[in-house]
C-alpha cells in the first residue's frame, strides 16, 4: 500500500517535472527576467502577484551609471507610451531592504513621466510595472550599480534639527515641458523620510502625495515608501497647461501639508 502510494506520488512528481521541462513556452505570459535578478520571482509576487506580465522597453527607467550618493539616487520613469491607459504604476528596487518605492496613479490630464530620488542599499534592479485599464502588466526595468548603504544611513536631518522647524515646507515651481505642451511641476518638501532601519529612529515618511487641479480634482496621486530620498524632490508632467494647481501631502505621523503651486 505504502509502496503503491509512493509510486503514485513519484510518477505524479515525474510528470510534473516533465511538464515543466517540455512546456516552458506555455508560460510565455510570465517571461524570464532579462536582468536575471535572484529576487525577481519574489518581488514580482509581492507587487503583481500571479498575474501575466510582459517586460517592456517602452517604459523607460532612467538611472545613473553609478549611484554616487546612495542616499540620493535620481530615477526617472517615463511611461508616456501608455498615456491614458494607466490604472496604476508600481516602482520597486529588487535588492532594497524595503523594496517598494512608490505607486503612481495618473488620471486624465497627467502625462505619465515622473522623476524623484531614492535610497539604495546595494546594486539592484529597479522596476516600473504599469497596470493598464485593460488589466495587463507591462514591466520596465534598469540595473542600478551602487556601493550601497543608502537605507541604513541616518538621514542628514538627524544631525541637524532644521527639519523639525521646517517639516513639510514646500518649495515648488512650474516649468514648460520638454515637448512644449502641458506643464511640468517640480517641488521639494522638507521631510526626513526615515526608513526605520537606523538604530532607534522610527520610520517617519511621507506616504501620500496628491496633485490637484484648480477644481480640486486629484490629477496625480502617489503613495510613497521610505526608500524615497530625504527631502523629496519630485517632478510631475501634466498635459493640462492651466494654472491654479495645488499639492497635498500626508505623512505616516498624520501631518498634512498643502501648498498652492
Amino acid at each position, binding site marked *: 500500500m505504502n509502496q503503491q502510494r509512493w509510486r503514485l506520488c513519484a510518477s505524479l512528481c515525474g510528470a510534473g517535472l516533465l511538464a515543466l521541462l517540455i512546456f516552458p513556452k506555455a508560460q510565455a505570459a510570465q517571461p524570464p527576467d532579462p536582468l536575471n535578478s535572484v529576487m525577481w520571482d519574489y518581488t514580482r509576487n509581492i507587487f503583481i502577484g500571479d498575474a501575466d506580465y510582459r517586460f517592456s522597453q517602452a517604459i523607460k527607467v*532612467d538611472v*545613473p551609471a553609478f549611484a554616487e550618493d546612495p542616499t*540620493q539616487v*535620481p*530615477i526617472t520613469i517615463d511611461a508616456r507610451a501608455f498615456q491614458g491607459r494607466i490604472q496604476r504604476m508600481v516602482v520597486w528596487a529588487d535588492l532594497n531592504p524595503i523594496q517598494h518605492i512608490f505607486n503612481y496613479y495618473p488620471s486624465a490630464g497627467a502625462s505619465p513621466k515622473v522623476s524623484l530620488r531614492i535610497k539604495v542599499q546595494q546594486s539592484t534592479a529597479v522596476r516600473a510595472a504599469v497596470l493598464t485599464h485593460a488589466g495587463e502588466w507591462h514591466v520596465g526595468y534598469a540595473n542600478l550599480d551602487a*556601493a550601497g548603504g543608502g537605507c541604513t544611513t541616518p538621514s542628514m536631518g538627524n544631525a541637524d534639527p532644521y527639519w523639525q522647524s521646517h517639516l513639510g515646507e514646500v518649495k515648488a515651481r512650474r516649468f514648460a515641458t520638454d515637448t512644449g505642451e502641458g506643464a*511640468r511641476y*517640480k517641488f521639494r518638501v522638507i521631510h526626513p523620510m526615515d526608513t526605520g532601519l537606523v538604530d532607534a529612529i522610527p520610520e517617519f515618511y511621507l506616504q501620500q502625495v496628491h496633485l490637484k487641479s484648480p477644481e480640486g480634482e486629484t490629477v496625480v496621486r502617489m503613495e510613497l515608501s521610505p526608500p524615497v530620498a530625504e527631502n523629496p524632490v519630485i517632478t510631475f508632467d501634466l498635459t493640462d497647461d492651466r494654472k491654479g494647481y495645488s499639492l497635498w501631502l500626508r505623512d505616516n505621523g498624520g501631518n498634512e501639508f498643502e501648498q498652492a503651486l
Partner: protein
Amino acid sequence: MKYLSGWILLWLALPVQAALEYDLQAEQVARNTWFVEGKTEDFSQENGGNIVNTAFIVTAEGVIVLDTGVSKRYGEALRQLIESTTDQPMRLIINTHQHPDHFLGNQAFADVPIAALEQTREQIRRNGDAFAENMYRLVGDWMRGTDVVVPSQTLTPGIIDIGGHRLEWLALSGHSGADLVLFDHTTGVLFPFDMVFYQRALTTPHTPGLMQWHQELEQLRAIPFTLMLPGHGPRVEDGRALDQMQAYLEWLDRVLTDAAEQGLSMTETMALPIPATFDSIALRRAEFERTVFHLYPDYEQAVFEP
C-alpha cells in the same frame, strides 16, 4: 604529481602577483624635480588606483615628497623609486589635500614629518577611514595593509627656503575646500596639484563652488611659471591646462544653471550633451554624471527661491 600540482599552482599565482606591481617611473622634468605620472583613468582593480600624479624635489637638505599616492603599496613603491634616484634622505612629506589618492601612501613615510594644511589634517582625521574603505572597494587587494596616517604637522602658507629651493605655498579651496598649491621660484615649476586636472575630467565631491574654483585659477595665471605639473593629467608648459579648466568649469556652471531653470530632473540633466570642445578630456561623461549628483541639488534649490 605533487610537483605537477606545485607547478600549476605557481603558474596560476604568477600572473596575479605580477599584476600588483605599480611600476612607477620618475621623469626628471626640471632641475632636482621629478614627476611620477599616473594614468588618466578612474580607480580600477587593473590600475590599482595609480591615477594620480606625484612628484619629488631633491633639495640639498633632503627630499620633499609631494603626495604619497593611493595605498601603502603605492607609497612603498614611490619611496623605493626615490631612493633609487637619489641618496638624499627624506626631509618632508606633503599631503596636498584630503582626497585618498594623495595621502593613503603615508605609511611608507611614517618616519618622516608629514605636513598638510590645518584644514586638510582635520578633513583626513574626519573622512580618512571612509575614504580608505571606499578605496578597498574600488581597487581591492592593491590596498592590502593600508591604514590612514594623519599628517603629523601643519603647513603654514608662505615662502620657505629649503636646500637651495625657494618654495612658495599657497592655500586655495576650489577643488576640495583646502587645496595646497606650490610654486618653486628656483625652478619655475608650478605644482597646482588637484586645483588643475588636464585632459582628465575634474572631480567635484567637495568643491565649495564651480565659480569659486574658476576664480582661484585666475590667481594661478598670475604666477610666472615655466612648467606646470597638474594633479591629474600630463605636464604642460603654458596656460593650456588653465584654459581647459576654466572653459570646462564655466560650461559646467552654465549647463547646470540652465537645466535648473528649465526644470530638468537630475537624470535628464545627466544625459545632456557635452560640447565637442571637451572631446580630449578623459572620463568627461562619468565625471559629469558625478558632478550632477554633487552639485545639481543646489542649482535646483536656487531656482525654487522666489
